[in-house]
C-alpha cells in the first residue's frame, strides 16, 4: 500500500472487467455498468498518480471531473435506454440494430 503498483493492478483488473462487461452483457443497462467500472478504474489511476507522482493533487481534480462526466453520462444514457425500452420493449443491444448496413 505504500507503492503505486497495487493501485495500478486494481485499476487494471477492474478496467479489464469493465471492458469485459461492456462486451459481455447484452443488456444496455449492463453495458452502462461496465462503463462505470471503467471510469472508476481510471479514477483510481489518477488519484494514485496524484499521491505518488510529484504533480500536486491535480489528479484528484481530474477525477472530480470524471465523476461529474459520469453523472451526466449516466443520466443521459438511462434516459435514452428508457426511451428505447418504451419504443421497442427491449433493451437487448443485439436487437437494436437499426443502424445495420
Amino acid at each position, binding site marked *: *500500500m505504500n507503492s*503505486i*503498483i*497495487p493501485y495500478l493492478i*486494481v485499476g*487494471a*483488473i*477492474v*478496467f*479489464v*472487467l*469493465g*471492458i*469485459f*462487461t461492456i*462486451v*459481455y*452483457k*447484452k*443488456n444496455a443497462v*449492463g453495458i*452502462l*455498468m*461496465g462503463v*462505470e*467500472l471503467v471510469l*472508476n478504474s481510471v*479514477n*483510481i489511476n489518477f*488519484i*494514485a498518480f*496524484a*499521491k*505518488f*507522482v*510529484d504533480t500536486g*493533487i491535480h489528479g*484528484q*481534480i481530474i*477525477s*472530480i*471531473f470524471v465523476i*461529474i*462526466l*459520469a*453523472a*451526466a*453520462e*449516466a*443520466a*443521459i444514457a*438511462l*434516459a*435514452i*435506454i*428508457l*426511451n428505447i*425500452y*418504451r419504443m421497442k420493449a427491449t433493451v*437487448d443491444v443485439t436487437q437494436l440494430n437499426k443502424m445495420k448496413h
Partner: protein
Amino acid sequence: MEMQEVLFYAIMAFTIFSAVIVAFANKLIHSAFALLFTFVGFAGLYIYLSADFLAVTQIIIYVGGILVLILFGVLMTQDIYDVKAIAAHNPLLLSLGGGAFTAIIIAVLISKKPWFTLLNKEFAPTTATIGKLILYEYLLPFEIASILLLGALIGAVYLARAEDKDK
C-alpha cells in the same frame, strides 16, 4: 501498522471480487447491487491514497446518484415479478477475448514503468486545496462542467418525458 495493510488488501480483494460479480453475475440486479460494493471498495482505496474528499464524493455521487439511477433503470426495464430472469449474454469466448486484449495492453503498459519518479506523500487534508484549485486554476473546466451538467439534466428530462410529445 500491519493492521492497515491487512485491511488494505482485504478492501482490494473485496473490490475486485465485487467487480467480478458485476461482470459475471447472471442476474442483472445482482450486478447492479454488486456495483455498490465495488464503489464503496474504491472509496476505501481512495482513503488509502489520502484522498478523503474524493472518497466521500465517490460515495455521494456514484452510490447516491449513479447507482440509484442504474437501479431504477434495471427495475424499469426488467420484468419485476420475474426474479429469476437471467440476463442474456454475448458469446463468452468473444468477450473474454476482448478482455484479454485489454489485459495485454495494460500489462505491457504497466511493465514499461517507471514513467515518473515516484514518491509517497504524507497525508494532508485535500478539501481546501481542491476547492481553491477548482475556483482558480480549473475555473473554466469547472464552469463548462456545470453547463454540461445543466444540459444533461435538461436533456434527460426531455428524453424521459418524450411520451408527452404525441399528445
